[in-house]
């Protein structure tokens, strides 16, 4: 069984159809890249998978481990193992990163019927994980993403990914707002988390990110559909020739 199956998905936002029958299958352990020009519906897809309000699904379905994802609340999806790394992670003043991480991890564990972490056990786990990702401890004491640089925000997303251990990670334009060094650090974090059980869907506008996170499959999106899929060489082809050819195909 595929980990994620998106079948003929049609989505509207405020009366305007953004996705017109999108189909995508991701298996365990695979890395997929979704590329496409601005406005092709890449971010809409990631938001609908995560359960963001404001999108109306008018047709098709999304199955996650065979279950109907669209029937689940966002927090249920998270507990089942769906993780969206946000393009622009929000700042939450007054909520310490540590408190947020512990509350979120324990909420997911509780939803799965697992025991919650005690404070000492949690601290131990966070220290291990943040150390392996080279995340300084003082970042954890600050408010969630408050005053973080673009690179720090993305590393905080990677830290959460490592802590929550999802089976599907969707990285929405994780390269936006990052310089090359920050991009490399974030990508190294993602690569370290890739495993035979964990799939990654990397949404990006540019081929650049795929120098660091090497995909098994590349999809090209245009006007709300996947118009072409292929191996990693497809990304290079796009870089050379641009998206225009696919816009006609759509």
């Amino acid at each position, binding site marked *: 069984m595929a980990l994620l199956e998106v079948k003929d998905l049609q989505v509207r936002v405020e009366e305007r159809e953004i996705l017109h029958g999108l189909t995508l299958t991701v298996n365990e352990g695979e890395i997929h890249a979704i590329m496409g020009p601005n406005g092709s519906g890449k971010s809409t897809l990631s938001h609908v998978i*995560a359960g963001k*309000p404001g999108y109306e699904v008018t047709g098709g379905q999304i199955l996650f481990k065979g279950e109907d994802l669209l029937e689940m609340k966002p*927090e249920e999806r998270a507990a089942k193992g769906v993780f969206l790394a946000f393009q622009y*992670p*929000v700042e*939450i003043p007054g909520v310490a990163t540590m408190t*947020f991480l512990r509350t979120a991890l324990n909420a997911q564990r509780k939803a799965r019927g697992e025991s919650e972490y005690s404070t000492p056990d949690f601290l131990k786990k966070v220290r291990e994980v943040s150390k392996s990702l080279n995340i300084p401890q003082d970042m954890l004491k600050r408010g969630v993403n408050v005053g973080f640089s673009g690179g720090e925000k993305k590393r905080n997303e990677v830290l959460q990914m490592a802590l*929550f251990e999802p089976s599907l990670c969707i990285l929405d334009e994780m390269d936006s707002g990052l310089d090359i060094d920050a991009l490399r650090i974030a990508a190294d974090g993602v690569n370290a988390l890739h495993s035979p059980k964990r799939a990654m869907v990397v949404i990006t506008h540019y081929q650049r990110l795929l120098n660091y996170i090497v995909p098994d499959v590349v999809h090209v999106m245009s006007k709300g559909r996947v118009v072409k899929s292929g191996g990693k060489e497809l990304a290079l082809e796009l870089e050379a020739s641009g998206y225009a050819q696919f816009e006609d195909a759509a």
Partner: protein
Amino acid sequence: MNVAVAKTGKGRAVSDLFTSAEGRLPGSPTVIATRREAFETYERLGLPHRRIEEWKYTDLRALVGEVLPLAAAPDAAALKRAADAVKAQAIAGARKLVLVDGVFAADLSDVKELATEVGFRTLRETLEKDAGLLKTASTDAVIALNAAMATDGLVLSIADGAQLSVPIQIIHIATAASASSFTRSQVAIGKGARATIVESFVAAGAKAYQISDAVLITVGDDADVAHIRLMDDSPDALNVTSHFVTIGANVKFNFFNMTTGAAVSRLQGFITLAGEGSELSANGVNLLQKTEHGDTTLVVDHAVPNCVSREVFRAVIDDRAHSVFQGRIIVRPDAQKTDGKMMIRALLLSDEAEADNKPELEIFADDVSCGHGATAGALDDNLLFYLKARGLPEKQAQALLIQAFVGEAIEQIADDNLREHVIGIAERWLERRS
């Protein structure tokens, strides 16, 4: 006893409130005469209503209607219930002074454990000689009624230079249902003293009761004072409290109020900066649900130059609750170099929740820096979605954001232990949300 009726001339019914209580009100004949005078003032004015500007948003005639008869002195059973409530409220290490249904309860209090620099008497004892504590410059009807009816209170004096290492916690416990209690206390803080005064209001099983409290505070030069008031009365109670605070020179005064209870409440504080070089930090949180009405009204009077005042207020309003914050900063003509700032923010958790924020500046000096801001809004959907996408259910995500919202006011409490105590009360309020 309907006060509106009293205003139309049938005053006799209202007078029953006083005459039926008179025999139980402490004080010498002179004191009783002062009380009678105060009661006449109250009778003439009646309960405040919306046509009185200061009470525009808290119309006690409409919200409360009548003043309930005076609570009986607590019996053994009441004191037993109160003892359990005291245990639940006590702050670790604090010296407790307990008032049950408006009467000082010596057996529940730590009078003997008070530091030697703390002078202590009850209002009852003080009134045997002198009516001074019943007199204030205010013409407010609820303050007049409090003067007429006050059964007891605490009269504390903290000696010059005293450095109190643990807080004094005044705990008001209500055990009598459908009755009213009136208390009046004085805290005189000496020069250079350092003290923390906490006031807690809770019920021990009582319902639909009414509390009227007045606190008169004077702060000597160079003192460093924290004053924290935690009003967590029964959800069907009334609490009307008035504070009169006079602050000397080079003082640090840190006030915090939290309202988490009572169907109808009003805290009105009149704080005068009477000595130069002082810093006032006055902060508060209203957490309101169901149909609760919580009013915080604060008048900060810069009477002299070179003082700083900072006010941070947060209101979280759910269901059909109504929060009122009125903050007035007065800068007298001589009070040059005044630095006064006030920030009020309301968080509305339901479409029917209501917030009235009324900041006012009255500035009569020309070289000052004063400002205020007021906002009202809902929880940010983007923040909620982020938290939900990380596995937090709606209520838990809201709770985290609400805690962060009120945190900015709560973090003004410097003492870790007290701050944790306050956060605990806020957390219990969040758990009560349906």
